[in-house]
Structure formats: structure tokens, C-alpha cells
């Protein structure tokens, strides 16, 4: 049997279990609605402004850097598995790749992409 068959079945069971946990509060938990309870929590005082939708733009930069570097990290995997067969050839190939990666990394570092302030 294809090993992914059981995995798919397991995922169905996990889905059902997680769904059960998610609908349970709607069925069992008591409800006593109250306008105060529906307010967003702000340490007890009334919310001073509309919902905050703003956060530092730096987080976007981190997300973009992640996408770039994670794709590059993923390309290490097939190479690593074949390393015993590729030997010196694979090593040189990968050193070239890492140098290219390193240039980009050094550029981001120099530009302050990793500094939080």
C-alpha cells in the first residue's frame, strides 16, 4: 500500500478531532451575553481608538527575507541527500551556491535589514 494512503486517513481523523474540539464550545458552554464582554480587551479601560490595524513595516521586510532565504534553504535538501554520491563535484557546486547566497546576505546585513532599530 502507498504510504500516503494511511497518512491521508490519519489526516481525516485529525480533521474530525480538531473540528469536534472547535464546535464543542458552541454546544456545551454557557452563554450570558453582555455588551461589556463584547468589547476588545484593553486592560479594563474603554478602547481609546478604533481597532489598531497598524504595525511596524519591518515585519514585512522580515517576511520577504524569509521567503527568499527559505526557498534557498529548501534547495539544499536534494543536494544534501545525494552528497555521498556527488562528493567533490557536489561540494564545489554548493560552495558556488553558498557564495551567491552569502553576497545577498551580506548586502541585507549592510543595509540594516537585520537590525531592529
Amino acid at each position: 500500500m502507498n504510504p500516503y494512503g494511511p497518512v491521508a486517513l490519519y489526516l481525516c481523523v485529525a480533521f474530525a478531532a480538531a473540528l469536534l474540539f472547535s464546535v464543542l464550545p458552541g454546544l456545551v458552554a454557557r452563554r450570558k451575553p453582555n455588551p461589556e464582554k463584547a468589547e476588545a480587551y484593553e486592560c479594563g479601560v474603554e478602547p481609546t481608538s478604533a481597532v489598531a490595524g497598524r504595525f511596524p513595516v519591518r515585519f514585512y521586510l522580515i517576511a520577504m527575507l524569509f521567503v527568499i532565504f527559505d526557498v534557498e534553504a529548501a534547495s539544499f535538501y536534494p543536494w544534501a541527500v545525494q552528497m555521498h554520491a556527488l562528493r567533490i563535484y557536489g561540494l564545489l557546486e554548493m560552495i558556488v551556491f553558498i557564495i551567491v547566497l552569502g553576497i545577498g546576505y551580506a548586502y541585507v546585513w549592510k543595509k540594516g535589514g537585520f537590525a531592529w532599530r
Partner: protein
Amino acid sequence: MQAALGTLNALPVWLLILIKSAVLLLVVVTSFAYAMLAERKILGWMQLRPGPNRVGPWGLMQPAADAAKLILKEDLTPKTADPLIYKLAPFISLLTAFSVYAVIPWGASPSGTWAIGNVNAGILFLLAITSIGVYGISLGGWASGSKYPLLGSVRSTAQMISYELAMSLSFVGVLILSGTTSLAGIVSAQATWWFFIPQCVGFLVYVVTAVAETNRAPFDLVEAETELVAGFHTEYSGLRFGLFFIAEYVNMLTVSCIATLLFLGGWNAPFGLTMIPGVLWFVAKVGAFMFFYMWLRATLPRLRYDRLMAFGWKVLLPVATLNLIVTAVVVALRG
């Protein structure tokens, strides 16, 4: 016993797999419940207090009492929240936390590996599924429509993706040595040397990133209560808060299982103590790693956020890359 086994084998294969899956999930949920109790007990002892000891003998019924309480508590949704995504987020967190166990092997017999599915691309499956877990946290904080959850969730998303990078690089050394992405294959490659010895740097990077990935102390910036109330789950109450809580502990277990499989020899017995079954060794190693987690929480203060990000990008990433280059050089020259 023999008769019972006979009936089991007579069942259709899919039904057998469904039963196995249900049993595995039960085991995972029970381990979560007692991991939580153990953490509270251990933290208590480390602070010279008894920990929970009122419900049942020695506090052993505490998880059941907590579960009953969480289920009965009111499930609040703030009026500023996006109701659908607000309810979907804890579901995503829990589902991804559970899903990982589809590929984790926890023992082996001559006839095969004890896993729901012993897939070839085991590590890739693990990384893919655990990455989806980030959505639960970022959507949960965003959909709450409140300040602190939003800040907590963008923080934790940035933290998790930054450390995920170093984590995936720390696996590469193990892949070079074992030459396979199958988890069972990696464990059998460790029959003589457990990989935490040749891969000590990779193991250290993995341990740090693992703690950061699960948002645990000293990297629990996500729920830095002095700044962000309770982080992304501030608005959640009752069982929906409980789902995030279960997901966090199940993720801790997952991370301990991965550490055991990739670096600590899986079910291989140390010192030739093979009369103790492999699955017990596996459980013991996972337990030891969990204890280490709790010990960290009792010992280390929280990091500052800018230092956390700088450490991930400027220290762990280069160290993990250097480790993989050195491993590759050694393998290329010595074979």
C-alpha cells in the same frame, strides 16, 4: 489475546488504520494533558512549592478538571472580530499540531516501522505541516480586532519564520550524513553514532530554534504579559483558548520527537541495552527533552525582541550554514 489479534487482522486495512489513528490521537492528547501537569509540578518543585495537589491523588486528576472547566466557560467573540477567521484560527493551529504525527515513527520491529505512514519525504512533510501552524497564530491575532493580539501575532509570526529558517538549515547536516529524508531511514543511520555527536553544532542550533518555534521561554515574546497582555490569544476564552493551549503543548511534543528522531538516535538503545524495547527508549528520550524544556522555563529570563531577531538572523543562520559546509567538506573528502 491471540484470538483478539486474529480478529484485528481480519478487519479491512482502512478500518485498521482508522483505529490506529484514533488510538494515536488519544495517546497524543493524553500526553499533552500529563505534559501540562508535569510542567506545573516540575515548575512548582523548582520554586520550592508543591504544585497542583488538590484534585485527585497527587494532583493526577488536574488535567480532567481543567478540561471540564475550559469546556464549560463562555466562548466570547469581541464585536470587532472577524467571526469566521476568529473561529478558524485555533482550528488550524490544532489540526496542524495533530497532523504531524501521521509520519512520526516511534519504533521498529523486524517486519516494519511503527508509524501511520512511513513516507520517504518524512522531514519535508514535517517542515511543511509545521509551517502551516504559523497561520493559526497570525490569523488568530489579526482576526481578534484588538490591539494586543495584533501586535502579539505579528511579533510571533516574524519570530517563527525567522527561526524556522535556521531550523531547516540545521537539518541539512543530518541529511548529508544519513543520505535520506525518510525518518525511519535517518534513525537506522544512527545505529552506531547518534547524530548529536557528529552534528553537535547542528543539534545546538536545532534546540535553540525548536524552543523559539514553539514560543516557549526564554523565547516566549509572543505572550510577554508585561507588554502584550497575553499576545495573540488575549481575546480567546473557554475551549477556543484551550485549543491554542493544546496546540502549543502538542507542538512541544512534536519538536521533542523530531529531536529524538534526528539527533538522539530515535529508538536505538544506548550502551547496547537492547533488552529494553526501542519504543520505551523513544518515549524516554522524548520525555527527557520535554523535561529540558520545562527546566529552561524555570531558569531563563525572557529575551528582548530586537536581540531575539538579531540572534536568529545574525548568529543562528550563519552558524547553521557553516555547520552544513563543514559537514559537506568532511563527507566529500572522507566519504
